[in-house]
């Protein structure tokens, strides 16, 4: 297993790209390509990654890079892999698609490639909305989040649907490897990318990548917010290898989802009722992932608010 110290000094995704300060996508791409190495060919569909990584005629990638349309990441990767195979070249073919390009628009193409078990790595950079076009809701947007298409009104506040369970959809294709990654857990991150690189068949890496303007947060907290997401159960680190599921990082006592929400402006409007609703969803997810045989019930929902004992003062104010 590679440690941080053993990673190469150089980077195949150069400095000078134009991502926002503190971009989680840039962080994830840089570290993924560090591990994947120079014998890699990259495909990126329409997303932030294509805007900040390549603006004609400039580019940050030092590996072969290809870009066409939004919805065909799976198909393009299949074609690239077939071409390299025909030429007798051993190349890791990697696609970096956003959550919009995976959850919604690219789903059919990804599903096709997964079902054929193509020998490619599909990386989903999940920042929970269409950030490049100006923060529109995607299938990956969590409950309650503000986006420009799920605005905060007087009747409905933010997104009313829960985050789509993409993991189970991908795993249902019976692929060799599916893993969720977080940039806040470097050793786990490196190990999973390396493991995917050394395997054959369709490998899916699901990366949690905070977006500073879309999540309305302080750019310095990119890594901290991913850590809190994992500690609160909003994001789970696990891998499924040939159908065998394994949780790779088990947080301690479950933290309240409020700790995570408070860091981000997109959840600022949420009422206690909505937060409770989201907390229940997280709890179900948490129990599903961590509730193994004999494991203690670590999920704790905040107890219902109890009425205060009636005091003399209270009686004076409100009567008996």
């Amino acid at each position, binding site marked *: 297993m590679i440690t941080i110290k053993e990673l190469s000094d150089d980077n195949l995704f150069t400095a*000078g790209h134009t991502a926002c*300060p503190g*971009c989680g996508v840039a962080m994830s791409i840089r570290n993924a390509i560090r591990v994947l190495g120079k014998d890699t060919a990259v495909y990126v569909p329409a997303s*932030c990654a294509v*805007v900040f990584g390549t603006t004609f*005629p400039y580019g940050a990638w*030092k590996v072969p890079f290809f870009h066409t349309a939004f919805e065909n990441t799976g198909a393009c990767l299949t074609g690239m892999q077939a071409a390299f195979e025909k030429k007798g070249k051993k190349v890791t073919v990697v696609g970096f698609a956003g959550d919009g390009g995976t959850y919604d628009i690219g789903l059919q193409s990804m599903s096709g490639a997964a079902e054929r078990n193509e020998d490619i790595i599909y990386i989903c950079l999940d920042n929970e909305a269409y950030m490049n076009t100006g923060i529109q809701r995607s299938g990956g947007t969590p409950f309650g989040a503000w986006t420009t298409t799920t605005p905060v009104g007087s009747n409905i506040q933010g997104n009313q649907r829960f985050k789509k369970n993409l993991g189970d959809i991908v795993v249902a294709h019976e692929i060799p490897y599916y893993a969720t990654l977080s940039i806040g857990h470097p050793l786990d991150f490196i190990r999973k990318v390396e493991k995917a690189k050394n395997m054959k068949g369709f490998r899916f890496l699901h990366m949690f990548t905070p977006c500073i303007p879309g999540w309305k947060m302080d750019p*310095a907290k990119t890594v901290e917010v991913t850590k809190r997401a994992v500690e609160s159960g909003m994001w789970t680190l696990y891998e499924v290898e040939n159908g065998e599921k394994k949780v790779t990082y088990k947080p301690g006592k479950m933290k309240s989802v409020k700790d995570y929400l408070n860091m981000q402006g997109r959840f600022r409007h949420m009422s206690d009722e909505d937060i409770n609703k989201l907390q229940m969803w997280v709890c179900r997810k948490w129990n599903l992932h961590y509730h193994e045989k004999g494991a203690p019930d670590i999920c704790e929902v905040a107890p219902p608010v109890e009425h205060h004992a009636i005091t003399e003062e209270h009686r004076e104010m409100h009567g008996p």
Partner: protein
Amino acid sequence: MFEVRFHGRGGQGAVMAAQTLAEAAVNEGNYAVAFPFFGAERRGAPVLAFTRIDEKKIYSKTQVYAPDCVVVLDDSLLDTIDVVSGLKPNGTVIINSKEKPDDIDLGVSVRTASVNATSIALEILKAPITNTAILGAFAKATGIIRIESLEASIKQKFGEKLGEKVGERNAFAARTAYEKTIIGTSRSVKKLEAKKQWLPKYQDYPIGAALIEGKTEAGLIGPGSFIENKVSGWATYRPLRDKEKCTMCLLCWFYCPEGTIIRISDRGDLMTNYDYCKGCGVCANECPVDAIKMVRARA
């Protein structure tokens, strides 16, 4: 008709400034329009916004090419963008800068006003969002709008979106800037040169339209050519590492999204190349021994 062009960086609120100015003008009984130049939504990247003010109805829908006034929300833009492009001879330039107007080199000698809006914003709003402060300077320098009506529309517009207290603080930022603005004339020392562009003919492309690594008159092109793109102008803060405290855990090097922190394995040391630092502060936030401090980039 009075035309204004705002130069800012994504996240500084140039678009909000343009809209607030238009609303204030409307409240004074004028006609006004405001609109941004649309591009990718990226914080820190150069952005444009425009406002037109007139006593008559406005039918012009184009971008502003010959402004009466140019507002620059970030003086680091002066190095990369020709902000005075198309400015009318008797026009005014308003710059967020710690320099006095007479020390600012715009390449032409024009009426210039300057105010240190970043310091005002950091002090009053606790964030480097300079749009309201620069509007105060605008009121002082042009006289097109009264500061009172500007304060009122800031309170209304920001209050509606972000709460009453935020609205009031922003109005106070505008008033503070109004009082601190200095008016003078810019220097014309530097020569304005149009940036060279690489404009290839079809024969210059290899078959399959793949772009290979190359060097042109306009600089590097193709894979890895972004290395010539210096992005340090985006930063408000930058990191300073204390070598004594540093334990070489390499977390900052791993987390840095820019490649600002460079590792030199032979020497077992880290180096910081500020040319690429956008000042996000992740390194300082994540350092387990607090060896990294964020300091003002251009103070």
